[in-house]
């Protein structure tokens, strides 16, 4: 299965075509094809996972160091050949690569193919599980929708693109996958395009991502030339790790690629499209804008970690761009979650904040922690989004302040699963988020030489505190208190099995996913070796394309009881404060209207730091309006003005020649010999009456004369 991983994206791609072609004629509108395809994808992904685990347990003997370079030079296809059994013990598990020629240019051949390693395998699992559950969920959730078939078609296309992106073997293929998931995101955000806000959100998402894409294109181009005309991911990483690429180039490439990460993975300051993207149907938000597509940026960093590690000097004590962006996003994203009334928007800002954790983890060098958080987050955030969808299914609104309340009694299953998801997101022991978030914080405190990344640790802790607080706020508004608005008017009832079953499964995963990487040090030294750090063991690459295999400075954080206790205490404080504020009504309620400073702060948050005004109003509006109009004015009046001027001047000139030369001079001279005058008059008259053939003849004659002069000068010089 490892060699045939190309089948995995192919299945949903075929499903996309089939749904478009046949969907409307099928009894269930094509959704049956989508669900079946995803079930198959899930089975195949599990197959890949099992295959990879076996490969790690029984690695093919890696070639010797010198041979490894030859293999890289001969093309990655050779890497899948198991080498001769060696004498010494190897821990290296080379990825499985399979390629075909995509195109040739400049005498070089470029390949497209699949690359399977632990990272790809775990992403395949995440994508296929969440996508399958979202498909099942959607059969009920969007039932009766005006474009039911299209919805499933594009879910399939998205899944295919995402899986292709995950399996990417070259940076060029990565760009293709990256853009295609963006397209699907555009289409699905704008699914209900009749309403302008929805299509606005879709366009905004696409354009904001395009801004980041400039960084992606430039960054990949720099890497292409730095790696001697190669798009091969393994080769680029290996050269970066081996110090064969100038540091400056790596730095430039990393910074450019970070712009792409900022847009795709919702990092500050290019995150603004993500909350707006909630205009799309909720299953889309869960799949694309929480669990899979938005982590594409994180995934790209992980995939090209050799580049970022060396380019941004991760692992040294200096602060780097990636860690800073991540840390800022953690806090500033979380802050915005407090002022949202729309439950999906709270979750969107929460996603931004959590993505910040992942980027921060990668920025401090805690690679496994970052990817582990990606893994756990996918489940509990998908659970929360789908839960929000289940709620709105009952009350037809996402406004938790006006239309919800007290729903724990009416929707018990949704309530329980949502609660589990919330606790996992808060990072409470022993749920999934606890393990991954703690590993990130431990990484921030332990890695990077002396002192570690203190700023990141502090920001991470603040983020954890705020996460607990805003999620408690959500619980209060939705599930406690008195039913309000829509929830009060008609009694909401629990959703059907096709909605609740995915919720229960995701909640279950949110409980157990954290155990995938149990620590085995400190208080957890009792964990047996073959149960501990499984995630790290299987997912973290061990070959030379990963800095962990080549750089001494690459470290793994160890479990820290101090940090674990600190986060739990902070969580308790946050929940306690929120409890006091909402349940007991304690604290300075209404301060935002009384105190000017608080009011200013609230306004700042309410307006999302005014970034939307800047982007939509100033940048986009300025370009679309004044700048474009000014350019067009110049075009019409200056450039075209010159053209018209030349045209008019020639005609006037012709007229003048006719009036003055022809009629006066020539006519006077040859007065009496009418035939001649008429002949020349005809000639010139034809010129100014717009007879095209005449113009042509003149130009031709002129050209020949010019050419003669020209050749004369040239031969004389």
């Amino acid at each position, binding site marked *: 299965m490892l060699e045939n991983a190309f089948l995995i994206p192919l299945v949903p791609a075929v499903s996309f075509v089939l749904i478009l072609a046949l969907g409307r004629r099928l009894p269930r509108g094509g959704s049956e094809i989508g669900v079946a395809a995803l079930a198959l994808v899930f089975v195949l992904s599990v197959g890949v996972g099992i295959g990879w685990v076996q490969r790690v347990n029984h690695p093919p003997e890696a070639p010797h160091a010198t041979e490894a370079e030859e293999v890289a030079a001969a093309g990655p296809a050779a890497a899948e050949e198991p080498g001769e059994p060696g004498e010494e013990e190897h821990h290296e598990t080379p990825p499985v690569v399979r390629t075909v020629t995509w195109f040739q240019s400049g005498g070089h051949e470029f390949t497209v193919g699949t690359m399977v390693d632990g990272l790809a395998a775990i992403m395949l699992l995440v994508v296929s599980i969440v996508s399958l559950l979202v498909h099942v969920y959607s059969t009920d959730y969007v039932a009766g929708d005006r474009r039911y078939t299209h919805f499933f078609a594009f879910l399939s296309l998205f899944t295919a693109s995402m899986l292709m992106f995950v399996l990417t073997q070259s940076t060029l293929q990565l760009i293709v996958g990256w*853009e295609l998931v963006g397209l699907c995101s555009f289409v699905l955000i704008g699914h209900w395009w009749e309403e302008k806000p929805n299509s606005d959100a879709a366009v905004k998402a696409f354009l904001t991502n395009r801004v980041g894409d400039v960084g992606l294109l430039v960054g990949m181009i720099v890497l292409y*030339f730095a790696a001697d005309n190669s798009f091969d991911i393994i080769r680029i990483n290996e050269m970066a790790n081996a110090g064969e690429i100038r540091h400056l180039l790596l730095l430039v490439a990393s910074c450019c690629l970070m712009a792409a990460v900022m847009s795709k993975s919702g990092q500050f300051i290019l995150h603004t499209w993500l909350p707006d993207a909630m205009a799309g149907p909720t299953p889309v938000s869960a799949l694309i804008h929480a669990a899979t597509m938005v982590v594409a940026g994180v995934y790209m960093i992980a995939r090209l970690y050799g580049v970022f590690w060396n380019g941004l000097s991760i692992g040294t004590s200096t602060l780097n761009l990636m860690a800073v962006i991540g840390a800022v996003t953690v806090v500033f994203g979380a802050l915005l979650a407090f002022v949202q009334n729309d439950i999906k928007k709270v979750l969107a800002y929460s996603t931004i904040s959590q993505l910040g954790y992942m980027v921060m983890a990668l920025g401090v060098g805690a690679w496994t922690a970052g990817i582990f958080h990606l893994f756990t987050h996918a489940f509990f955030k998908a659970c929360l989004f789908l839960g929000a969808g289940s709620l709105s299914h009952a009350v037809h609104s996402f406004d938790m302040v006006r239309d919800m309340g007290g729903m724990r009694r009416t929707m018990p299953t949704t309530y329980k699963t949502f609660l589990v998801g919330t606790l996992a997101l808060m990072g409470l022991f022993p749920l999934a988020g606890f393990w991954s978030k703690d590993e990130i914080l431990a990484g921030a405190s332990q890695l990077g030489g002396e002192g570690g990344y203190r700023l990141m640790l502090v920001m991470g802790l603040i983020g954890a505190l705020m996460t607990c607080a805003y999620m408690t706020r959500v619980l209060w508004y939705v599930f406690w208190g008195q039913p309000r608005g829509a929830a009060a008017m008609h009694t909401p009832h629990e959703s059907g099995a096709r909605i609740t079953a995915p919720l229960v499964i995701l909640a279950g995963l949110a409980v157990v996913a954290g155990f995938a990487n149990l620590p085995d040090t400190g208080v957890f030294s009792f964990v047996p070796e073959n149960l501990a750090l499984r995630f790290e063991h299987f997912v973290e690459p061990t070959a030379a394309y990963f800095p962990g295999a080549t750089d001494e400075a690459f470290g793994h954080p160890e479990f820290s009881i101090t940090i674990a206790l600190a986060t739990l205490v902070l969580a308790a404080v946050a929940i306690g404060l929120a409890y006091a504020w909402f349940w007991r009504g304690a604290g300075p309620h209404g301060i935002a209207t009384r105190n000017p400073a608080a009011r200013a702060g609230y306004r700042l948050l309410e307006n999302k730091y005014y970034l939307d005004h800047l982007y939509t109003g100033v940048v986009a509006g300025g370009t679309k309006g004044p700048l474009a109009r000014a350019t067009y004015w110049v075009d019409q009046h200056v450039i075209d003005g010159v053209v018209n001027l030349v045209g008019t001047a020639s005609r006037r000139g012709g007229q003048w020649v006719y009036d003055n030369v022809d009629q006066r001079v020539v006519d006077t001279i040859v007065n009496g010999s009418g035939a001649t005058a008429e002949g020349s008059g005809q000639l010139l008259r034809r010129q100014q009456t717009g007879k095209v053939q005449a113009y042509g003849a003149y130009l031709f004659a002129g050209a020949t004369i010019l050419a003669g002069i020209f050749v004369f000068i040239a031969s004389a010089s």
Partner: protein
Amino acid sequence: MNDLLDDWGLTAAVFLPMVGAVVMLAIPRTEEALHKVIALVSSLAVLGVVVALIAEFDFDRTRTLQYEVDHSWIEVINSRYILGVDGIALPLLALTALIVPLVVIYSWNHFPEPHNPKAFLILTLVLETGMVGTFLAQDLILFFVFFELVLLPMYFMIGVWGGEQRQYASIKFFLFTLFGSALMIVSFLALYFLSPEVVVDGVARHTFDIRELTDWGGEGLARTTALFVFGGMFMGFGIKVPLFPFHTWLPDAHTQAPTQGSVILAAVLLKLGTYGFVRIAIPILPEAAEEWAPWIGLLAVIGIIYGALGCLAQTDMKRLIAFSSVAHMGYVMLGIATLTDFGVNAAIFGMVAHGLITGMLFFIAGSVKERYHTLEIKRLGGMLLQAPRMGWILGFACMASLGLPGLAGFWGEFPAILSAYNPGGDLDPALFRVYMVVAAIGTIFAAGYLLWLLQRVAFGTPKEEFSGERIHDLHLTDYLAWAPMLLLIVVLGVYPNLIFRVTDGAVIESLAAVGGG
């Protein structure tokens, strides 16, 4: 059969349309159906010949001219009838042969006012002869004749079947292009006199033979002279492309032209200019090309941004698409200006992709005009509700046009940007890297104007004036004419090697003198 193809294949491709046109001349104009059939048959015959040529083409020798014919033609000046096709010409030949029958099919029941299918189709066929001939000619005078032959039918097409401003637009189109041609022929003549004599039939004579001139490569020519000669060709080809600031004829011509004219103009005519650079200007005068390249690159990237800004200012759908051509051809010219094989490959791919995609957009614009009787963007809206298939195709074409990977447009755009990082010859990498970044930023604008267009035209709900009206979705002729283009946009996007493999060898060959890579 193969002998026949070898000797007559290219000649047939060039003159079959002319044969059709002559036959049609003899038939009274009231026999409309017959005219349509003849036009379709002769354009399909060309397509058939081209398919046969492709089938017999030796893809291992794309760098050499195949199916060569070489006969004496104008003895006095030793201009010869030389035709040949290599990897550079083949994709463009195929594009032309494909587009014309599709245009005929599209026209079937939708001839623009003042109707008269006979004249319209004759012009279309004459146009085809000119276009095919330009791509195949290997003699400068022959090239020039075909290059100019294209002008007349297009002039009449715009001037007779065009919109309200057709007089102005057609004259502008004609004169502007002719102005460039005049300078171009000066350069051709200069090349004729300045290049060394070659022996033909035992007599040493000057030559217009592009193959001989390429072998000569401007050796021994004074630097200034070479720069001037290149400059003449630059004007001729650059206006046709069109490069900023010689582009102003384009929006007018496109806006006023009938749909069919716009499609041919966008799909093929603009490529005559870029093809001229690749086939004639650069291989014959590589050193001058190197000195000109930074300026061409500069105009190209200005065109990218400028064209995009122009698009954003448009209120008319067709004019917007016209302006987008300025931006897209900017990418093609940037690829050429890098003088690298990667860049020129991308440029040729970009020509084909732009031909298909922008041709498609103009088809849609024509259908919108026919159904809504307006192209004013603010009056349109909700097309996806009234004519869902057309709306989806518009969305598809917009996505292709903005360079979405997986569709054809990407492969003209991204490699061109990429090649600017490391230009060929002695070009200044720093300068071209600036161009690269500007061109990359241009992709944001491209997405901006296209999505904005899509949002206003296709999304939302129909405006009041059209809300009660029944808008006909696709006609049968639309399906037939559009399906091949849509299919090719996808196929080329998924498997770009279909074109890259063909062009690569020939491009490497043509740039050998520049030393790009």
